[in-house]
């Protein structure tokens, strides 16, 4: 209980400082503030999908359904955070680029990821039997994750994108020197979102297990 309240206060404080106190980056101006929400969401998406793939591999290796529960829950949460990142990105794009959607390489990548993991969940829905579902969706999850590094790291760097890259270092130094206040708010949000994800993950996994137990009790 105590750490849930701490997490709430932590995110609330970081968000408040980010929205009210932190200075703005030139050019981006007021839209700077989306970064405290948008980048942590995108980061959690990658963490969640990686977590899902890791547990898919563990399932194929150990054949323990608990791994499958983790893989499924992480994919669902990854999709949720991916939607959050997409929507906040689109709102930002409207303000900066003048259109919600423009098929910028970044937008294309995140849309492909949305499709990939929607397909994963659709596949799960179409397989009967816990073990079969776990095995086949684990196979798909691993293949799907093959595409993720291409989409996130390769494609946006190959094609011209207008997407700002505040935190990516180029040649060992920051392209844009980040203000310490921005950096601390941002890192605090990043940590907060990561903990939030793992908390939601344990909740989701517990719900799945309770559902399974109820089904078994019913026969």
């Amino acid at each position, binding site marked *: 209980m105590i750490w849930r309240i701490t997490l709430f206060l932590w995110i609330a404080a970081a968000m408040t400082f980010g929205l009210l106190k932190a200075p703005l980056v030139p050019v981006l101006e007021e839209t700077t503030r989306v970064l405290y929400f948008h980048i942590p969401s995108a980061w959690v998406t990658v963490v969640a999908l990686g977590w899902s793939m890791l547990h898919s591999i563990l399932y*194929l290796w150990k054949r323990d359904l608990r791994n499958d529960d983790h893989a499924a829950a992480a994919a669902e949460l990854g999709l949720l955070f991916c939607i959050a990142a997409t929507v906040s990105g689109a709102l930002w794009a409207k303000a900066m680029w003048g259109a919600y959607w423009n098929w910028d390489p970044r937008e*294309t990548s995140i849309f*492909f990821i949305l*499709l*990939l993991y*929607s*397909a994963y969940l*659709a*596949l799960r829905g*179409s*397989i*009967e039997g816990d*073990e*079969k579902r776990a*095995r*086949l969706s*684990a*196979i*798909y999850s*691993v*293949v*799907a994750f*093959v*595409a993720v590094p*291409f*989409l996130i790291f*390769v*494609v946006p760097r*190959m*094609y011209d994108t207008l997407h700002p890259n505040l935190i990516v270092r180029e040649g060992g130094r920051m392209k844009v020197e980040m203000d310490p206040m921005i950096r601390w708010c941002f890192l605090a949000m990043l940590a907060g979102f990561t903990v939030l994800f793992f908390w939601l993950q344990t909740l989701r996994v517990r719900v799945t297990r309770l559902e399974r137990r109820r089904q078994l009790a019913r026969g």
Partner: protein
Amino acid sequence: MPNGGSNSAAAVWAVLRKECRSEWRTLYGLSAALLFAVTSLTAVSMAAGRLADRTDILAGLFWIVLLFATLTSMSHAFVREVEGHTMLLLRLIASPTEIAMGKLLFNLIFLGVVELVLVPLFMILMGAPAPPWGPFLAVLALGTVSLAASSTLVSAVIAQTRGRGALFGGISLPLLLPVLAAAVNGTRELWGGHPIASSLRLLAAYAVALLAASLLLYDHLWED
């Protein structure tokens, strides 16, 4: 097991020959794919007209026609075995990896044959200028390898689900979108006379990654 390497090569070869022979007997898959390819090409050609000077649009149309024409017939690889109740027998004579490798090679040949018809027809019907053939074939070949690798794996997964054929497109396309994006970009640059090294690298890397992941995963396709 002594001679394991040559044994599994023989098994892969046997699966490939069996595939070719059963396809040759009915020509069911090939005729369906060719018919679909020609029909969808006709639809696109009639809707868009000749686009000789719009190579940027041609590149996109080419890959969309190719992808949709081939995807519909790619799901058969394993679905046919399940529907014909021959899957168990096939699994008795070869390991999952050998079966999947044989099917993968067959899919590659199959795609090659469809492309042999589709590519010239596309160029003629759409009035496309001749591309530099070397790089064009390189893009085509790398795209084909990714297409065959992903559809072999997805087909094996799909054959064990409730929806079977219905799900195949929806599950395969997201995996192939990076291929589509890179291939369209490469083809467009090619017609525009620009270098395509970066698209080729991306296509090759993706094809290798898909193949490597498939090879590791084939073993888990069926429960023993």
